[in-house]
């Protein structure tokens, strides 16, 4: 469904993405993991057209996304650091997004689960980090997109909210959606993901099924399996 071919991106001296080749099929849940600064967010941003790659091509459903914008109607994005117009209230932001995007069916499960209507009148600037994350999550799922891109989704969320979000992610994967998650908390990814792509210094070290990774390392937990991989200096 999504394919990255020979993607290069350089920020000044830093080679953020170095010949990335990845492809993700539909109805899978994929974890992008890697140390800080390994290029995860840059990769995600280039998928969303927020960062323009220097070289290479990204295709969405077999057509290139470079210079196009309509494909984004099929992507729900939850950013790591969310930015919203500070003087708008939660309900104004939600209404504005509904106004700007075309949609058939709204998915308001998360809005209800996070009890956002009770906070609807609050301006964005007064919200705590966790509440902002909740708004981001709601907006990502709201338009029923085929692909969900979640950048550090549970960072800053309390355990209850993070549990709600994880259940929602599982449910959407079952509904045949492609979910891309980046996270540093490997333990919470255990039940969520089918595949793991490991990035380091802008390069893809490996991209495997979780089952294959478990078989190769002999470990059941993702944390331990990844630790084993890192100890052995890659596979």
């Amino acid at each position: 469904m999504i394919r990255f071919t020979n993607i290069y991106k350089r920020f000044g001296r830093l080679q953020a993405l170095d010949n990335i080749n990845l492809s993700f099929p539909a109805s899978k849940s994929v974890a992008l993991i890697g140390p800080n600064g390994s290029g995860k967010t840059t990769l995600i941003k280039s998928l969303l057209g927020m960062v323009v790659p220097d070289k290479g091509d990204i295709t969405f459903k077999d057509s290139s996304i470079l210079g196009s914008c309509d494909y984004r109607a099929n992507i729900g994005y939850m950013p790591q650091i969310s930015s919203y117009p500070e003087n708008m209230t939660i309900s104004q932001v939600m209404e504005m997004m509904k106004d700007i995007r075309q949609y058939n069916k709204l998915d308001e499960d998360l809005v209800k689960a996070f009890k956002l209507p009770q906070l609807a009148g609050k301006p964005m600037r007064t919200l705590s980090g966790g509440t902002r994350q909740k708004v981001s999550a709601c907006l990502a799922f709201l338009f029923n997109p085929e692909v969900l891109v979640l950048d550090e989704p549970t960072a800053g969320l309390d355990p209850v909210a993070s549990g709600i979000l994880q259940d929602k992610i599982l449910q959407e994967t079952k509904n045949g959606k492609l979910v891309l998650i980046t996270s540093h908390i490997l333990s919470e990814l255990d039940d969520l993901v089918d595949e793991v792509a490991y990035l380091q210094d802008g390069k893809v070290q490996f991209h495997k099924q979780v089952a294959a990774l478990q078989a190769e390392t002999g470990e059941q937990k993702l944390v331990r399996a990844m630790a084993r991989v890192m100890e052995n200096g890659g596979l």
Partner: protein
Amino acid sequence: MKKIIKYVVLDILRNRILVSYTVLLLVVSMLLLCLTDNGTKALLSLLNIVLIVLPLVSIIFSTIYYYNASAFIELLVCQPLRRTKILLSVYVGLALSLLIAFCVGVGVPLLIFDGSITAVLLIVVGMALTVIFSALAILGSVIMRDKARGIGVAILSWFYFSLLYDGLVLFLLFQFSDYPLEKPAVVMGALNPIDLGRIIVLLRLDSAAMMGYTGAVFASFFGSVGGMLTAFVLLLIWMGWPLCWALRRFNRKDL
């Protein structure tokens, strides 16, 4: 696109700065038009305000607004919208609100109390300058990532266009006074939209003493009407190029 313009305009109109700018312009133009007995004198004073205050407010307000709206722009960029459309809508919304402020503050009193062709010309020049300087502001803020630097560039460019430029022209004239300078002076006039605006209104008023060197050259080079038309065409070019450049730059920008 209309929807984004609507959000931008609503956001700006809620802002008190723009309202106080409108009131200030209104008070000044009322005072000038009602208290001065000589119509031409009032027009000239208003011209100076239009040439100095308008570009300053347009460029600074637009720059600050663009940086404050960066969250909004980022939010829009990951939606299914063309980048060109996003930037264009922000620009149109900004220019539109500044134009409303100008028309209410200066345009309406001028039309009511004066109503001459010169007054209409002054309004047109003011509108053109508003549009040009908000386009310049957008260009500067798209290029500069840092807010402080962006505002610095905005202030500097206003300083250049309204003050430094005249000094520069005088300096060149004295340095090269032994040579024929008509053609270079025409080119120099074309390089500054504020000067072009001044030339247009003063050609109409025929007050050659205030025209300055570039204006006098324009008058002798193109004649009164021809000079005005040429200046208008040049102003149109000034409206176009900063925006085109900003759009091209924004399409390739990493957010």
